[in-house]
C-alpha cells in the first residue's frame, strides 16, 4: 500500500466522487463526510509520496500504470505518473486546499445549493482528481485529458452559482476550450516530431536529436504556451476569470481561485523546464525577450483594475490576475532565483488566496454583502474572521512573517540579479497598489469613512453604528476554523520558508539555470 501512495492520491477523490454520486441519492448528508474523508486520505497519500520522493536518490518517484514497467518495456508505453519535488509540492498544495475547503463547505453548500449536495461534492472531488492528476502525470496527452477533467468540473461548479453565473460560465467554456484545444494541437506537433507523448521521453528526444531549431517544435512551443496562458488567465486572456469567480458559489470560488490558475502555472513551469528543456525554451525562442514586457503590462493593468473594484470578490479576482503575472514573470526572467520565487509563489499564493476567499465567504454570509460599503464596523462584529482575512491580505502585500513576503523576495531578487529592472519596478508598483487596496479595506472595516471620504461617526472611534450592529457575531465554527487554519498555514509556510526553498533548490539543481544575467 505504501509503494502505491502516488496512486492513492487520485484513487481517494475519484472513488469518493463516485460514492457521493451513488450514496448521495439515498442520503444527502453522507456526502460531506465522504468528501472530507477522501480528501484526508488523499492528503495522506500526498505526504507519503513526498516522503518517498525526498528519500529516493534521484528525488523522483515514477509509477507506471498497468504493469508496463520500464525494465520490460520502453518508456512511453503505458501511462506514467512521475512525482518529482515540484510536482509533489504543488500536489500537496492542491490536496491541502481541497481538505480545508471541504471542511469549510458544510454550511455554504447546504444553503447556496440546496438539494444538490451530492452533485456538488461529486464535482468537487472530481475537480481535485483533475488538478492533482495534472501535477502528477508524466504524459503530455494525459495532461490534456486531466486539464479537461478539471475544467469541465469547474464549469459545473461555477454554473451552480447565481443567475449570472451561467452567462459567466459560458464565456469560461469558450475560452477554456480554446486554451485546451491549442494545447492539444501543440501536443500533436510534439508527437509528430518526437514520436512519443511521455514527458521525459520528449525531452530525451529533443536533446538527443538537437531539435531546438526545428520549426515544428517552435510551433508546438507557441501553441502549448498560448494554450496554457489562456487557461491560467494571463492578462490579455483573463476575461473569463473575474465574472466566473464572482458569481460562483462561495465554496467553488474558494476552491478554484487558489488552485486553477496556480496549477496552470505549474504546467507552464513543467513544460518549460522538463519537457522542452531550459536550452530550448530560453535560448532558441523569443519568449525571454517578449514575455517580461507582457508581464509588465499584465501586472499594471490587473492591479489598476483591482483598484477600480468596489466589491471584495471581484477585487480578489483581479488580484489573482496580477499574481499570475508575478509568477509568469518569475519564470521568464530566466534566472535561478526568479524560478525559486515563481515556484514558491505558486505555493504561497494558493495559501493566501484561499485565506482571502474563505474570509470573503464568511463576510458574505454574515454581512450579506461583499461590497465595500457593507463592511463598516465588521471588525468589532467578527474579529477572528477579519484577522484571518487580513493575514491573507498582508501576505498578498508581502509583510514579513507571512509567506507572501518570502516569495516576493525571491522574485525581486531574481529581477535584480538578471537585471530585469522593468519586472522589478512593476513588482514594487504592484505591491504599492496592494497596500492601497488592503489598507483601504482596513479603513472601511475599522473606521466609519464613507465612499466620498466623509466620516459617518460622531468623532474618534465611533462607527456611526448602533450597538446592535457591532455586537460580536462570528460565523459558524465549521467555516471559521478552516479560515484560521488557512491563516496559520500562511504564517507557517512563511516561517518555515527555508525548508521549502531548500526542496525547490534540490529540484532546480538538475537544470542549468543562470544565477546572474541570463539573456
Amino acid at each position, binding site marked *: 500500500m505504501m509503494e502505491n501512495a502516488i496512486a492513492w492520491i487520485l484513487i481517494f477523490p475519484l472513488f469518493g466522487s463516485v460514492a457521493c454520486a451513488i450514496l448521495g441519492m439515498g442520503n444527502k448528508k453522507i456526502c460531506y463526510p465522504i468528501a472530507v474523508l477522501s480528501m484526508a486520505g488523499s492528503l495522506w497519500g500526498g505526504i507519503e509520496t513526498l516522503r518517498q520522493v525526498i528519500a529516493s536518490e534521484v528525488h523522483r518517484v515514477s509509477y507506471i500504470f498497468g504493469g508496463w514497467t520500464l525494465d520490460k518495456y520502453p518508456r512511453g508505453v503505458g501511462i506514467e505518473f512521475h512525482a518529482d519535488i515540484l510536482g509533489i509540492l504543488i500536489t500537496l498544495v492542491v490536496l491541502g486546499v481541497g481538505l480545508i475547503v471541504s471542511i469549510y463547505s458544510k454550511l455554504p453548500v447546504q444553503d447556496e445549493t440546496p438539494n444538490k449536495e451530492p452533485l456538488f461534492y461529486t464535482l468537487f472531488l472530481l475537480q481535485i482528481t483533475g488538478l492533482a492528476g495534472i501535477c502528477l502525470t508524466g504524459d503530455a496527452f494525459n495532461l490534456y485529458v486531466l486539464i479537461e477533467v478539471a475544467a469541465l468540473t469547474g464549469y459545473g461548479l461555477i454554473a451552480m452559482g447565481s443567475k449570472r453565473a451561467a452567462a459567466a460560465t459560458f464565456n469560461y467554456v469558450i475560452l477554456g476550450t480554446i486554451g485546451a*484545444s491549442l494545447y492539444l494541437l501543440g501536443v500533436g506537433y510534439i508527437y509528430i516530431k518526437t514520436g512519443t507523448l511521455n514527458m521525459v521521453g520528449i525531452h530525451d528526444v529533443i536533446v538527443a536529436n538537437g531539435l531546438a531549431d526545428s520549426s515544428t517544435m517552435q510551433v508546438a512551443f507557441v501553441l502549448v504556451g498560448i494554450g496554457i496562458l489562456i487557461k491560467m488567465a494571463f492578462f490579455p486572456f483573463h476575461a473569463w476569470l473575474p465574472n466566473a469567480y464572482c458569481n460562483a458559489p462561495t465554496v467553488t470560488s474558494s476552491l478554484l481561485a487558489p488552485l486553477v490558475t496556480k496549477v496552470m502555472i505549474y504546467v507552464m513551469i513543467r513544460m518549460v523546464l522538463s519537457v522542452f528543456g531550459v536550452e530550448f525554451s530560453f535560448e532558441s525562442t523569443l519568449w525571454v525577450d517578449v514575455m517580461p514586457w507582457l508581464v509588465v503590462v499584465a501586472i499594471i493593468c490587473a492591479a489598476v483594475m483591482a483598484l477600480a473594484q*468596489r466589491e471584495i470578490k471581484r477585487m480578489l479576482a483581479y488580484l489573482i490576475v496580477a499574481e499570475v503575472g508575478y509568477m509568469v514573470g518569475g519564470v521568464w526572467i530566466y534566472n535561478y532565483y526568479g524560478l525559486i520565487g515563481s515556484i514558491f509563489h505558486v505555493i504561497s499564493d494558493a495559501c493566501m488566496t484561499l485565506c482571502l476567499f474563505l474570509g470573503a465567504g464568511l463576510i458574505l454570509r454574515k454581512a450579506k454583502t461583499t461590497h465595500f460599503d457593507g463592511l463598516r464596523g465588521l471588525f468589532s462584529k467578527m474579529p477572528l474572521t477579519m484577522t484571518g482575512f487580513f493575514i491573507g491580505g498582508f501576505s498578498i502585500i508581502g509583510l514579513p512573517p507571512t509567506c507572501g513576503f518570502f516569495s516576493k523576495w525571491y522574485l525581486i531578487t531574481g529581477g535584480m540579479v538578471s537585471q530585469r529592472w522593468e519586472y522589478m519596478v512593476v513588482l514594487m508598483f504592484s505591491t504599492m497598489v496592494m497596500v492601497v487596496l488592503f489598507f483601504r479595506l482596513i479603513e472601511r472595516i475599522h473606521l466609519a469613512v464613507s465612499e466620498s471620504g466623509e466620516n459617518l461617526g460622531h468623532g474618534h472611534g465611533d462607527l456611526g453604528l448602533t450597538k446592535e450592529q457591532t455586537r460580536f457575531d462570528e460565523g459558524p465554527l465549521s467555516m471559521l476554523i478552516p479560515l484560521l487554519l488557512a491563516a496559520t498555514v500562511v504564517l507557517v509556510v512563511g516561517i518555515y520558508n527555508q525548508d521549502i526553498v531548500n526542496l525547490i533548490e534540490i529540484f532546480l539543481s538538475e537544470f542549468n539555470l543562470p544565477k546572474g544575467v541570463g539573456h
Partner: protein
Amino acid sequence: MFEDGTIINELFIERLNYFIYVILLLIGLHGMIAKNNLIKKLIGMSIFQTAIILFYVSVGVKEGATIPIYLPEHDPHGSHASHGDENGTEEAVHGPVVLESGLVKGYANPLPHVLMLTAIVVGVATLGLALALCLRIYQGYGTIEEDEILAKIERQEMRLKPSIIVKSADSPKPKTSNSENSAPKPKVSSSPSTKRSKARPKAKAKTASTATKAKTSQAKSSSPKPKPAVSKSTTTGTKKSPAKPKTTASKTAGKSTTKAKPKPRAKPKAKPTTRTKATSTAKKATASKPKPRTPKK
C-alpha cells in the same frame, strides 16, 4: 502546374489535409469569438475541435499501410500454433510481441486515432455542458444573443441600485440621507419579501425625485409588480395603474407581461400588516409616477 516542388502542389496535393485543418481552425475560432449568438459560438467550437481531430487523423495516415492488427502471415501466435503447439509458453501467447522493423512498416500507427477517441469524448462532454448552459441562460434571460444578455445583466445591476436606498431609508437613523447618496448596492435579493414590501413605497418616492435612470430599468423589468399592488389597496388611481404595466410591458417581450401579472396578486396578502408605515404622500407619489413614464417608453 502540378509538378513537384511548386507551392500549389505542396498546398493542395501533398498537404491538403493540413491546409483544410488550418482553414477549419480559423473558421471555428472566428465563430467562437466574433459571433453574437451563443449557439453559433458552440458551432464554432465544434468546428474548432473537429479541425484538431482532422489534424491528428492526418498525422496518423500512412500510405499503403493497413490497420494495426496482425496480418495472418505476420501473426506470431498463429505461427506458434502451427508448429510445436505444446511448447508455446504462456508468455508468448498472451504477452505483446514486438515485430521486426521491416514488418512494422506495413501497419499504420494507431496512437493518433486512439488519442482522438478521447478528444472526441471530451469534446462531446464540453458541448453537452455548454448546451445545458445555453438552456439555463435562455431560461434566465429569454435570449441567447450575447449583446442582449449583457444588456439585461446591466439593467439588472442598475435595478439593484435603488434597492440600497430601500435599505437605508428603512433604517431609523438621522444620517440616512448621507449614506443614500454614497451607497450603491449591497445585495437585497436575500431579504424577505415582507421587509421589501414595507420599504418600497418610501423608496418609490425617493427614486421619483432622484434616480432617473432607475425608472427606465424598472419599467421594463419585473418591478412593475409593486405598483398595481399599492394602487389596488388605495382608493384612487386603481383603474389607471393596472393598465399601465400592460402598455409598458407590451413593448417588451411577451414573457415579462405574463410574469409581472401573477405577482401583484400574491403581494397584497403581505401588504395589510406590513404597509403601516407608508405615508399618504408616498402613495400619491407612486400612483402619479407611471404617468411620466409612459411617454418616455
